[in-house]
């Protein structure tokens, strides 16, 4: 049985078991989920270390690894040929790190779910469904299958935020759902357009297979997205329009600045474990989508629009950082800092250089660990005193020393202190962005300089928060009652935080752990897009 | 103008004026007497058009029978009706007089128009030979026809009259049953 399929559908089976199990076993649900996530870590770890670095993957179909291709839907549509949809899973350098990242974040989220008290059965079933959807998104190579998993992700998240969230949870849940759905609906159109333009070389009928969509040979001459036909839709060349629509669909997930307003609301209202998953993995789906689908299927459009992508990246970095500086709520501050850090991802990808792209993938991985850790830390304070206002706390270091130690590690790691993974990621994204003018002229040099201002601003708001909340004399809004409640970290919390901090440190000191896996695919992607 | 035409015009004028007055006058008694005058004028016209037996029948049956009946009905039915009629003008009449007049005149013009269009005098059976002359003994012809050609209507008429008689008697009896 193919490892990827096991990895994908194990949580689903566990979810069904939980649904079927009598609610008397409520206590055991969280342990079942924990077991599932641990098994997932084992599998993805095995996959990660047995991944052959030399195989490149991006647009060469036979160099994908752990492939599983079964014909799933074969309908004879008479005149329109046969409908061919395959159950096609496979991974390459771009998606393998995300598998490991997802399983680790899921494990941490499970540990943080100890705080959930109400209707556990529903919660853990949705949690595992979400887990399946995310792993599926990263492994799917058939566009139809990808779309199914992509939409499947929304449903559990909507309920998780909507039912277990904070005060304005319905508003946040609806806003999140509609925002993402609006993006993905148009993606459906492009998918169908692509389906009708691409023919599978072996079977001769249309196909959803993404890898076939990547090489121009499979496009039939007069098709809508065919590169020779140069068809135009609404005055814009069809391929460029396709790229833009797909980019918008994934940009909403990244999120880029104009389309980001769902993120602070969704994060502030979501319960801690959900916002860990939301920040840890969901934002990466957007970045991964841009790399795999937008850049893979429409490389020519990618070159034309790289300037705009770079600009959006820079704006996201600076705008996100400025907003974070102005926040009063700690969780909202971290949400905006995620927007700013994801701006580096966009800047790196837009540079179309090896350093830039590898830096952006590294940034996604490191941001995954760090933002999960940050949200977990905010969750710790929130569970104890149900308040996240920065102004209400002062001098926490004296009463919660270990907590402060972890917060300092998290803050300094995410503001890019060398020795942690974020520094390597951000430095190489910027170096790639700066370098791109000599290599392929994708984005101008000033964007790298403007982007580096983001590092300074992130230092500013993180240190300012650290100074206001943690240092100085202890003065708490809740006074004596809060002081008793604000006890230091429990073993469980340390168990969740320690791996994340260690991973951020290890990736920072030995980046080769991640870069060796990514290099092959990144070079292939750059070659595929720019031809260099 | 031959004397015949003069008499005709006199009788015609008499008919029209008495009819109009009978209709226009408010009180019932006056209209009944004017009705009486109209009937006599019509009888005169019958005589003028050689229908002397019909004229006589008219006078006897119509004037004697119908008019008298009406007088009785009038007297039995409405003492107070007489005075109420004078007192109050009914709030609304079924049809305003003006539309009735318009309607009647329109009908009159239509009839006249039809008459003129069909120019009846030149009809062949009118000008044909078979014309009644003054000297013929109309009562004899009527008697013969009555017993030969029109025997069936004659019998039916008698049965009809008997039926009417019973009906009227039944209606007008002092009804104890209801």
């Amino acid at each position: 049985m193919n490892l990827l399929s096991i990895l994908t559908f194990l949580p689903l089976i566990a979810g069904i078991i939980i649904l079927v199990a009598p609610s008397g076993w409520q206590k055991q649900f969280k342990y079942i989920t924990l077991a599932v996530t641990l098994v997932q870590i084992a599998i993805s770890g095995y996959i990660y270390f047995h991944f052959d670095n030399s195989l490149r993957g991006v647009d060469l179909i036979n160099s994908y690894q752990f492939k599983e291709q079964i014909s799933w839907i074969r309908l004879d549509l008479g005149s329109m040929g046969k409908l061919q949809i395959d159950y096609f899973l496979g991974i390459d350098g771009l998606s393998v790190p995300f598998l490991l990242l997802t399983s680790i974040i899921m494990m941490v989220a499970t540990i943080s779910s100890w705080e959930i008290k109400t209707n556990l059965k529903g919660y853990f079933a949705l949690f595992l469904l979400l887990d399946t959807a995310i792993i599926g998104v990263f492994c799917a190579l058939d566009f139809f299958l990808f779309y199914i998993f992509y939409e499947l992700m929304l449903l559990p998240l909507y309920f998780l935020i909507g039912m277990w969230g904070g005060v304005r949870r319905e508003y946040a849940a609806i806003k999140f759902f509609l925002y993402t759905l609006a993006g993905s609906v148009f993606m459906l159109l492009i998918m169908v357009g692509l389906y009708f333009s691409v023919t599978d070389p072996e079977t001769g009928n249309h196909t959803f297979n993404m890898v076939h969509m990547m090489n121009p040979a499979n496009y039939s001459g007069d098709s809508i997205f065919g590169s020779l036909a140069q068809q135009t839709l609404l005055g814009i060349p069809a391929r460029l329009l396709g790229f833009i629509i797909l980019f918008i669909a994934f940009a909403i997930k990244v999120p880029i600045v104009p389309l980001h307003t769902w993120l602070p609301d969704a994060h502030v209202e979501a319960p801690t474990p959900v916002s860990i998953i939301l920040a840890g993995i969901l934002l990466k789906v957007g970045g991964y989508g841009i790399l795999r689908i937008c850049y893979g299927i429409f490389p020519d459009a990618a070159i034309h629009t790289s300037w705009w992508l770079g600009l959006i990246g820079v704006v996201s970095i600076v705008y996100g950082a400025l907003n974070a500086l102005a926040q009063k709520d700690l969780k909202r501050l971290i949400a905006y800092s995620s927007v700013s850090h994801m701006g580096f991802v966009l800047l790196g990808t837009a540079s179309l250089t090896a350093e830039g792209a590898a830096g952006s993938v590294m940034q996604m991985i490191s941001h995954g660990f760090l933002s999960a850790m940050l949200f977990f830390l905010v969750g710790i304070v929130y569970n104890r005193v149900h308040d996240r206002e920065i102004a209400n706390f002062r001098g926490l270091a004296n009463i919660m020393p270990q907590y402060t130690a972890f917060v300092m590690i998290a803050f300094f790691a995410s503001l890019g202190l060398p020795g942690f993974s974020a520094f390597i990621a951000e430095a190489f994204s910027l170096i790639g962005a700066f370098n791109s003018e000599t290599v392929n002229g994708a984005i101008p040099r000033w964007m790298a300089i403007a982007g580096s201002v983001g590092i300074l601003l992130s230092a500013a708001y993180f240190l300012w928060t650290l100074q206001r909340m943690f240092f100085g004399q202890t003065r708490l809004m809740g006074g004596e009652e809060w002081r008793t409640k604000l006890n230091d970290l429990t073993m469980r919390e340390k168990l969740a935080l320690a791996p994340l901090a260690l991973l951020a440190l290890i990736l920072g000191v030995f980046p080769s752990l991640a870069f060796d896996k990514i290099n092959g695919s990144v070079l292939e992607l750059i070659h595929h897009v720019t031809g260099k | 103008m031959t004397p015949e035409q003069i008499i005709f015009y006199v009788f015609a004028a008499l008919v029209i004026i008495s009819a109009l007055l009978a209709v226009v006058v408010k009180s019932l008694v006056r209209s009944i007497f004017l009705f009486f005058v109209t009937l006599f004028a019509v009888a005169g016209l019958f005589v003028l058009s050689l229908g002397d037996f019909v004229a006589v029948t008219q006078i006897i049956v119509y004037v004697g029978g119908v008019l008298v009946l009406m007088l009785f009905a009038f007297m039995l039915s409405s003492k107070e009706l007489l005075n109420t009629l004078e007192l109050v003008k009914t709030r609304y009449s079924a049809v305003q007089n003006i539309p009735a007049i318009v309607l009647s005149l329109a009908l009159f013009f239509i009839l006249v128009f039809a008459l003129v269009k069909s120019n009846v005098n030149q009809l062949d059976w009118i000008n044909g030979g078979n014309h009644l002359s003054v000297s013929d003994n109309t009562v004899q012809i009527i008697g013969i026809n009555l017993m030969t050609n029109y025997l069936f209507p004659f019998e039916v008429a008698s049965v009809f009259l008997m039926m009417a008689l019973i009906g009227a008697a039944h209606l007008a009896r002092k009804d104890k049953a209801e």
Partner: protein
Amino acid sequence: MEQHDIIPVVSLLAVLMPLLSFVLCMFFVPKSISGKVAVSSIAVSFIASCFVFFKIWNAGNIHIQHHWFTLGQTSWDVGLLLNNLSALMILLVSGIAFLVHIYSLAYMKGDENIDRYWGYLSLFCSSMLGLVIADNLLLIYIFWELVGFSSYLLIGFWRTRDAAVQANKKAFIMNRLGDLGFLLALMILYSQFGTLDIEKLFGDGGLFHLSQFTSGEWIAPLGHISYVWLLVCGFGFVFGALAKSAQFPLHTWLPDAMEGPTAVSSLIHAATMVAAGVFLLVRVSPIFDSTVLITIAVIGIFTAFMASTIALVQNDIKRILAYSTISQLGFMMLAIGIGNNGAAIFHLATHAFFKCLLFLCAGSVIHEMHYAKNKLDADCDHQDIRNMGGLRKMMPLTFVTMVIAALALCGIPLTSGYLSKDAILISSFEWATTRSFAAKLIPYLAMLTSWLTTFYIARLIFKVFYGELRIQGDKTERLIHEAPRFMLMPQLFLAVCSAFFLFSVNPLSYENTWLLKVFPGSVALERIHSYHTVIPALLNLFAVLIIYFAYIQYARKEKAMFRENTWLYNFALNGWYFDEFYHQAIVRPVTYVSKFSFSIDRKVIDGLVDIVGKSGVLLSSIAGWLDRKLIDGFVNLAGRAAAGLGNFFRSFQSGRIQYYLAVMIFVVLTFFVLRYFSPAI
């Protein structure tokens, strides 16, 4: 392993020992023995660096590398580069660190989270040592930020004091600002040469020398961009150095950094970290062209002059020394600016010794004053020199060592300071002879600054050690007594190092110091003999006069020569109002812009989304109303019309027979009319 392989391993050992002690002190070792662990580790690394120094000095470079990670096509390596500069620096840093560790044993005794202190101090030492021997610029950048981070931790060590917490945030952000420049310079070099390895770039056969500069273009192996980028790269490195060495635009964090323990200030903010900026500039000096050098010189001299004027009026003993550090670093920048790297490094070395000594003595004085203050529980600032006085009788040894250090600072003959300061001054005069008039101004300004230096250090000495103790409360019994043994030993050792013999046999001429012979001046300065005698003589003559003048002024309290609250006095007291200026010009606008952008985010973008939502709702309600009114409307209308019609006709059947007759006749009539008048029927 034969001779040649041991040295890198030993130098690696020197770097890693403090790191090991950091990990031990922070997590594993109990509080009580953390001090011993830290001191022993720095001792080991000091011995190792001595060994390395004697092996490397004047004996060729060693450069070993190890693969770190490959990214795209380029593979990034991590390695050690041991040449004269790094050997000297590694010795200097570990030596002073060792002394300060011994000093802190006594100074920080009894602090409740002492283990954290030792941990942070070891982290600083390891990152500083790493910085010094790193072989590629990226590694230097990493250690550069780690040094900034550990100084952040140490400044904010007493984290319950708000001033300390403000100071360390400010220090880190300013350093981070400088690091942006450094990063930009890295990016330029990488995009031009594809590597950041110092040896490959600036080594004798290095890539940098292959690039040509023709007609405003910078043609390099990987690409050619406009010449401006070379300037930008140069200025990037300079900007980084300015932040780290607290030079003119980014110097305001150093005086605030005095919130940290004095031992920390002495090690970090006097000798080592601030020197890192100068070290970096010397490391990448080939990249600077003439304009960049000129700016370095100008910034250096301006900072020196500005800092010395501010130091004149400060009352806090540590702030005076902080500003004096800034001023001396200004001199080093000047030396680099005029191309005499050797003089800069020489001054760096001597300055490290006597400035660290000054801080240690100040630390002892503060230690004793603090002790006295607690005994008298007088609530005066124990660091304010106006409360001190007449300590020479109570703390003789500290007095002697401080005077030696002060003499070295002023550059009086027989001290190491004299040699290094004269080196700089004389070469600046030689440099100025060939330059334009404006450039000639610089050496004279340098001379004026050194006189100011003499005055403020004399003021400090006389105020602290002469006259009588001005602290409130009864001063009857002996309050102040000599500093503890552990504090005195380092002071004495440093006093010895401040003398001339450590550097050159002849106390009066700096030419034949062993240190200078190794560093060739990058710009050939022909030697004008006359300067070598006239300038030192002139300089010292006035210096002695100033000392005497200060003696009258402060020791014997003749008459207050300077009025206190003149405009100039306040201007200097508040550090030329730079702090307020930065706060108004940068901090407030940035926070304002961020609030503004957040309000935009909330109102405009969120507003837009909500408007879309509301308009959706509005549209649906309109559609609902429309649906009700129009479509239903028609249906009801038809119903009502039928009813209306029905009513209308119903009135016909009103039971009035005459009415019926009229209608019948009307119908017959219309039939006849149609029959006759309309041809159709």
